[in-house]
């Protein structure tokens, strides 16, 4: 479904990604783990078109997409739910969801999807007319995910969905991720919580200083002593 091949990405003059390659197959949940600053978010931002690679290519369902602007990429079905949630805090929950569906012009479908999002997150329905900035951290994360679902993702890029949440909420976020996957959405998940991420993922990539250093099935990565040492805190 998605092939990233040898991309180099720079922030001004400093190189953030070095020849990063990865593949996501239809229906898979692939996770990208690694420490802070390893280039995980940069990889997602390049796929969604916010950054342009200097080298390399990104192919989605046979189409080259690395030069497309973000709004064209969303239309193709690649939807990026960014780190830090990035909600429109002055706008209400409903308005945020409406903007999530900006790329979709089928009103009936949007209405139905909003119903599904409210089923998935009943709290959002209760707070439909509140401005997003008044929501709790967990509710904001739910809204961010709900807003991304409004764009009818075929490939969902999830960046640190559990960051800053209480342990109980982290559990429920991962439960939601499983449910989204069960609906047939392909997911590329970036997580600092490597243990949980490898629990839900089919495959994983490990990044370090802008490079991919390991690629394997999630179960093999969990069993890998090097990964256990560095990212799982030796706790498994």
């Amino acid at each position, binding site marked *: 479904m998605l092939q990233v091949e040898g991309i180099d990405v720079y922030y001004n003059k400093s190189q953030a990604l070095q020849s990063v390659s990865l593949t996501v197959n239809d229906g898979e949940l692939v996770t990208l783990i690694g420490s802070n600053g390893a280039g995980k978010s940069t990889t997602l931002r390049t796929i*969604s*078109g*916010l950054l342009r690679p200097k080298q390399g290519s990104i192919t989605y369902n046979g189409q080259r997409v690395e030069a497309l*602007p*973000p*709004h064209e990429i*969303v*239309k193709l079905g690649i*939807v*990026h739910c*960014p780190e830090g949630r*990035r*909600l*429109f*805090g*002055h*706008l209400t929950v409903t*308005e945020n969801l*409406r*903007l*999530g569906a*900006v*790329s979709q012009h089928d009103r009936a479908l949007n209405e139905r999807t909003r119903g599904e999002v409210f089923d998935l997150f009943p709290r959002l329905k209760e707070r439909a007319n509140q401005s997003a900035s008044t929501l709790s951290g967990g509710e904001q994360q739910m809204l961010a995910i709900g*807003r991304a679902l409004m*764009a009818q993702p075929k490939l969902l890029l999830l960046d640190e969905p559990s960051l800053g949440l209480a342990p109980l909420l982290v559990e429920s976020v991962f439960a939601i991720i499983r449910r989204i996957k069960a609906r047939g959405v392909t997911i590329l998940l970036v997580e600092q919580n490597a243990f949980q991420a490898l629990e839900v993922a089919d495959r994983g990539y490990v990044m370090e200083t802008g490079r991919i250093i390991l690629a394997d099935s999630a179960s093999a990565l969990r069993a890998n002593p090097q990964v256990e040492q560095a990212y799982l805190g030796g706790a498994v």
Partner: protein
Amino acid sequence: MSLPLYALQQLINALSIGSLYALMAVGLAMVFGILRLINFAHGDMMMVAAYIAAFSLLAGIPLPLALAMMVIGTVLVTLVMERVAYRPIRTAPQVAALLTSFAVGQILENSALLASRFARKPEQIAFPGIDFLRGVVTIGAVTIPKVNVVSLALGIILLILLSLFVTRTTLGLSMRAAAEDLQAAQLMGIDTNRVIVTAFVIGAILASVAGLLYAVQAGTINPIMGFSPVLKAFIAAVIGGFGSISGAIVGGFALGLLEVLLTAIPGLGDILPAATTSPGVISFFKTYLPSSLTSYRDAFVFVILILLLLVRPGGILGTTDRDNTR
């Protein structure tokens, strides 16, 4: 004239000038909200509109057509300005964009000058009279120039339409989203160019209406007529809380009130009824707040602006939260 009538008349003056400031300030604020660009050429949009209207009317084009040409022409000039001057430097440092806006202003002002030369007209052109804006409205003992009443009414109607647009339509919501977080807006599938162009176009439409009303009120137009209004609009936007549309509206009316208040109070000594007011009060006003102080009005406005910003750095509606001004 009695004091309540004087107050009423001044209030309507204040609201009418305030609605012009609000129309201009909203345009500045919308563009700033999304692009972080203080578009000082925005005042020149007023001037362009006034020139198109004046030249068309002087050429004998009927009023409705002339007004349509004015709005469309101003929008076209704005579209070219956005495409040629601002879009290429969108990722450049903010100071580059600010300087560009001054350059754009210079080009427009000199074009107006050239146009006047070609038409063999003086630098200062008498604005042709428009019948439905001429004369006064009399309510009881209060007389108000018709153009002030029309300014106020038109300003309020346009600002209501604008609020409906930004709260009800998807494009309007997209604009507000882009003002809050441009990248997140892009990730929703919002086309940045589309919302930026929309902000410029709405600004141009409002500026063209303001330009017409301003020209009618002033009676003459010249190439630099937009300078003082854009400065005032900028102040209005800062007073209200820069970058927010509601802030710009509140700021525009607040500035109008403040200016008229500062003009009206120094003149009080001359109109206070001598029979019912103690001579002490009258002589106080005449000594310490003579009507000649009126010419220092702008200085007082700036002093009050500075004081306000010391107390509320984010403006009346603004917060001190950095995230919200982003």
